[in-house]
């Protein structure tokens, strides 16, 4: 026995010793900022500016064609004398895993997508290139394209670190089965009472006329299904922080929220809502809506109104007709949802190590400027003239090749695209839906700007809050206990820290006085 233990100790310490010494060697290169980034392999750091620099771009997503078939890449490569290599990974957490290890190993891509958390973390650790000095000089074109107010969202400690891609616009609205309304002789609901009545009729009066009681008023995915209802009470979904009347409001503390919950609880207790609401994932809710299970769903036109989807639900039932429904009017307002119209659709950062490669850095700036300028922007939006689009009477008309080949172009829109012009052009058949969704009244959300402060665990607080809200609306906890719920949030979960952080951030960004 003595020998065994001694052997074990000797073996373990040997292994540890070797491990530490080798580890020292390899993470002696732990000075991540000092190492050249991975994109350099093969590219020469020549004196002449005729070198074709390889630029690696890391992004989340998939669907790129093979490099030899990538027309946008080829066009950009040729124009700017570069060789773009896209490193794309599907699934954001998997993508971030790769970025994290690459950051630790010192071989980050030359441009890479980040979220707010990573941006802050990397910037504070000195891993990112500070863009501030270049904004008004070498990145002027890109900067004016992205606009200063958006770029502010990519600031850390007073410096600019992120390329902020132009914000997305809202796609969402309620959608309702128009044919069901007609079958039951109802008109489009305009306020909460009418909405309730319609939902009740959908559930109880067999709107599809098949003799079975198998339909519900609402379906959706978790609480998002009720966004316009929260809007009718002048608030946003639980957990949101938004701006109202020039002030920062946290939804939990908005007096309208418990009343909204009350309304929803009534819907659920009368069985007007799909029982699978909380278990729906991905496109399940939409699929069930298409199957004729429910008559009202909150979704983006991207999920309902594209040609292929219309065909799908018409196959199930040729008489089916889904139309958009505006948010109902309620006692405190009329909003579709809370949406951050000033949230960068993507944030890209550059590694600090690029400082040591001024020529390559210049090429990257060239790229960013080019795609922000008219010609380059048109390339990454619509592709190649004559092949993907034609200019007819001054308007851009897409060709069939665009539908087949053009689905990956948006990944090259590093700085974004002007959505008001782009969306109707790219989706001409859906133009009306796009415009309708765009014009709905919405609250300005600022969630995406707030990072959880130290000492506060967002995951725990969110879990508790979600669970309690669900209990409220499913009648498992009386709404009279709502204040007690808030108190637990503050005491046990320190929610006030988050609220204060929200206020602070809003002031920093100049969103409120």
């Amino acid at each position, binding site marked *: 026995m003595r020998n*065994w233990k001694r*052997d*074990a100790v000797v*073996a373990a310490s040997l*292994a540890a010793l070797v491990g530490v010494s*080798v*580890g020292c*060697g*390899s*993470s002696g290169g732990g000075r991540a900022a000092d190492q050249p980034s*991975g994109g350099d392999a093969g590219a020469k750091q020549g004196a002449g500016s005729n070198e074709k620099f390889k630029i*690696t771009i890391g992004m989340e*997503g*998939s*669907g*790129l*064609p*093979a*490099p030899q*078939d990538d027309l946008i890449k080829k066009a950009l490569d040729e124009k700017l004398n570069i060789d773009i*290599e896209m*490193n*794309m*990974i*599907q*699934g*954001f957490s*998997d993508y971030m*895993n*790769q970025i*994290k*290890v690459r950051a*630790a*190993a010192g*071989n980050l891509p030359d441009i890479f997508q980040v979220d707010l958390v990573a941006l802050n973390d990397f910037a504070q650790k000195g891993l990112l290139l500070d863009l501030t000095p270049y904004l008004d000089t070498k990145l002027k074109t890109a900067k004016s394209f992205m606009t200063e107010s958006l770029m502010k969202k990519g600031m850390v400690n007073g410096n600019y670190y992120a390329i902020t891609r132009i914000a*997305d616009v809202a*796609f969402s609205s309620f959608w309702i089965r128009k044919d069901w309304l007609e079958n039951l002789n109802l008109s489009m609901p305009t306020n909460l009472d009418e909405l309730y009545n319609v939902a009740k009729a959908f559930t109880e009066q067999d709107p599809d006329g098949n003799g079975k009681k198998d339909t519900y008023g609402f379906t959706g995915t978790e609480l998002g299904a009720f966004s316009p209802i929260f809007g009718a009470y002048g608030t946003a979904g639980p957990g949101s922080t938004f701006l109202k009347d020039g002030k920062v409001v946290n939804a939990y503390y908005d007096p309208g929220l418990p009343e909204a919950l009350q309304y929803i609880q009534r819907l659920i207790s009368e069985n007007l809502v799909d029982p699978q609401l909380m278990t729906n*994932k*991905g*496109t399940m809710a939409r*699929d*069930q809506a*298409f*199957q004729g299970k429910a008559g009202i769903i909150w979704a*983006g036109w*991207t*999920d309902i109104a594209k040609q292929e989807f219309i*065909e*799908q*639900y018409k*196959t*199930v039932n040729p008489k089916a007709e889904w139309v958009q429904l505006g948010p109902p009017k309620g006692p405190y307002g009329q909003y579709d949802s809370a949406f951050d119209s000033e949230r960068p*659709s993507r944030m890209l950062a550059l590694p600090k190590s690029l400082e040591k490669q001024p020529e390559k850095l210049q090429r990257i700036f060239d790229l960013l400027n080019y795609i922000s300028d008219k010609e380059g922007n048109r390339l990454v939006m619509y592709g190649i003239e004559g092949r993907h689009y034609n200019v007819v009477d001054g308007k851009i008309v897409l060709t069939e090749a665009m539908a087949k080949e*053009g*689905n990956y*172009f*948006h990944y090259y829109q590093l700085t974004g695209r002007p959505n008001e012009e782009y*969306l109707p052009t*790219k*989706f001409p058949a859906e133009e009306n839906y796009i415009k309708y969704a765009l014009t709905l009244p919405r609250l300005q959300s600022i969630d995406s700007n707030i990072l959880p402060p130290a000492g506060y665990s967002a995951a725990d607080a969110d879990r508790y809050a979600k669970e309690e809200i669900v209990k409220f609306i499913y009648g498992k906890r009386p709404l009279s206990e709502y204040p007690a719920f808030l108190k637990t949030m503050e005491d046990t979960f320190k929610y006030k820290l988050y609220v204060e952080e929200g206020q602070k951030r809003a002031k920093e960004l100049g969103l409120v006085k």
Partner: protein
Amino acid sequence: MVRGWQDRLFNTGIYAIMAVVGLAAVVPMLYVAAVSVTPYAQVLKNGGYVLFPSEWTLAAYRKIFGTANLLQSFKVTLFITTVGTAINLLLTALTAYPLSRKALPHRNVFLFLVVFTMLFGGGLIPTYLVVKATGLLNTIWALIVPTAISSFNVLILKSFFEQLPEELFESARMDGASEALLLFRIVVPLSMPAFVTVGLFYGVGHWNQFFAAIMYLTDRSLLPLQVVVRDLLMQTIEQAENPENMVPTVTMQMAAVMVASLPVIIVYPFLQKHFTKGMLLGSIKG
């Protein structure tokens, strides 16, 4: 034959259980296969699932096979599955065999070292740094070498090796056999069922390999099958934010599952013939 009716009852019970198990396993696969060839609209019309397709379409399969990279990724996966498994089996056998010999001095030390790695690991970053330091980054060997030995499989082989009777070894040694001969000419053939099983475990592991590829590879031509298929599916549960994204239908998802798993499912029946008994008997008598 007194036991005749008892035997028959026993057999009937056996067959019944097998039937239940077989059905419980195959019906979901039929569902996957059926949906993969049914146009999505029909699937919806049927209430979301189909067992016997009324309308056929191979559109999903055509789309999958038309994807850039799919054929290449098939080749990559074939390579790592065959070469990788061969390396795995060799190394695992070489490691398991000495550890199965109870007389080996300090055997427990090595065993502990092996088992310890099943529970403790340095994590993503140090492993990535080592892979980088050993020059494997962005090469196909990054999918083979860092996972060259699985302690679990070492322990399994060792356990099977230990079942072989000691006389076998003594008589072979008396005939002057070296350890290597013992291992490769006697022990391995006698442990074929275990070998095949461990080979299957490694093989399927390689076939399904995905995480290591995401971590270590940036060259698209090196991506294995599962990554390409997964990319195709955007099999995330999150909503698609870009309006340009085509969120795949259930039909596509099922077709992808079929493409990704059918080859392996088909292989196994051919391996079953190695699970024959009685080899041990012959060799002892011999």
